[in-house]
């Protein structure tokens, strides 16, 4: 499903005219943090090296932003829409399976 379809109907879009926004910026829905993309804040970027990964999943609980998706008990590639590049996952990986590089290089 695309974000547009999944989005809660109550989410107020950016630059909504003041007459149509909610009073005091009340957010009249919940569970919508995923629609606010914070990947742009990143200065450093973790790179997952799948061939070296043992799927020990130590990285997953250490991620402060739920940016390591899990499918069938295995980690997938990073969710770069939300990963802020803190580097905790690269630090904790016992198998050197996560590189940590300067964003854009």
């Amino acid at each position, binding site marked *: 499903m695309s974000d547009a379809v999944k989005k809660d109907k109550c989410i*107020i879009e*950016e*630059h*909504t*005219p*003041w*007459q149509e*926004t*909610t*009073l*005091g*910026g*009340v*957010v*009249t*829905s*919940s*569970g919508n943090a995923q629609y606010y993309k914070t990947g742009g804040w990143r200065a450093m970027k973790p790179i997952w090296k799948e061939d070296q990964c043992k799927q020990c999943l130590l990285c997953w609980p250490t991620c402060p932003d739920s940016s390591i998706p899990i499918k069938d008990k295995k980690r997938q590639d990073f969710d770069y829409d939300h990963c802020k590049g803190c580097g905790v996952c690269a630090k904790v990986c016992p198998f050197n399976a996560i590189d940590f590089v300067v964003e854009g290089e």
Partner: protein
Amino acid sequence: MAIRDKLSGNEAVAVAMRQINPDVVAAFPITPSTEVPQYFSSFVSNGLVDTEFVAVESEHSAMSACIGAQAAGARTMTATSANGMALMWEMLYIAASCRLPIVMSLVTRALSGPINIHNDHSDAMGARDSGWIQLFGESNQEAYDNVIMAVRIGEHKDVQLPVMNCYDGFITSHAVENIELLEDEKVKAFVGEYKPQHYLLNKDEAIAIGPLDIPSYYFEHKRSQAQGMRNAKKVILEVAEEFEKLTGRKYGLFEEYKMDDAERAIVVLGSTAGTAKFVVDQLRAQGEKVGLVKIRVFRPFPAEELAEALSHCKAIAVMDKSDGFNGKGAPVFNEVRSALYDVENKPAIINYIYGLGGRDVRSTDIEKVYSDLAQIVQTGKAEDPYRYLGVVDANDIDVAAEAAATRE
């Protein structure tokens, strides 16, 4: 039948709060507002109200608790003065921007320093742009009436803003006057049930209140907040009309006292209006065309209406019970003068800072103001409009001599 009683201003406000029976009161004691939560907590202890009374550890916490409670969906009230409100500062803005119609009685007192517990308006004037509606009462009766109307004004769907019920510390808060109270059931019916559109305890709607507002949202929310304040003027008048039907007591944005043919007028807020009316009556008896405008609603500021009311005058003195410290004039003066900008044949206008830190305001002080205005009308000159009334000034021979006499 209305109930006749003799109450202090604080007690009258506490009685009104008992009749309103709010869901939550969170307050911290500070002179001269202390009696409001003190009386009210006795009503709580005696089971006369259903209110959750939150005894907090500071005024910052008091306003924070009020914000939390009102956001949860509870009708919430508090009271404070001067430095107590100063400690609430950041939360005042948050209450207003979250559009939470909290009602707070502000028992006006000089904002330290130097430390002073007596009355002036420096606390209220400091908060004039915090986004709160500000009503000023002259008497115990008005403090009582205003706090009841405040609930309806703030909660109106076109407004949704917090309201300050301002009345003068000690002069109004502690002096006992005859008062007409409404019956409990009439107050209950008048304020009705609080029905917020969105509230945190609504199990059918998961919401967030007070979220981070990034640049693509913030401006629109502030614009919407400003509209709430603009809309308040009409709502205040509608609520006043309904209140008049109930009580026979008439309220507007301001009160005009003997203004019809007045050439000279004083603009004033709060209890000093009573002293000034006494002087107006005396001068009128001598055939002098003097009048008085008492501002009841300072926020929203009734600029157009004031301009209309004052436009026919020749000279006006605006009385400020706080200084402005902008080097040019105090808040009420600047706004009244600005309101008169579009008037043709503008009246001369001067400012008197008076009564700071509880300095007495006597009828002779008010007489001096009308006499100064007469001189301005005569000469057509209003030199040095930024003036003081009642300050001991070495260059003001009369006042300095009187002060010296007191010292001896």
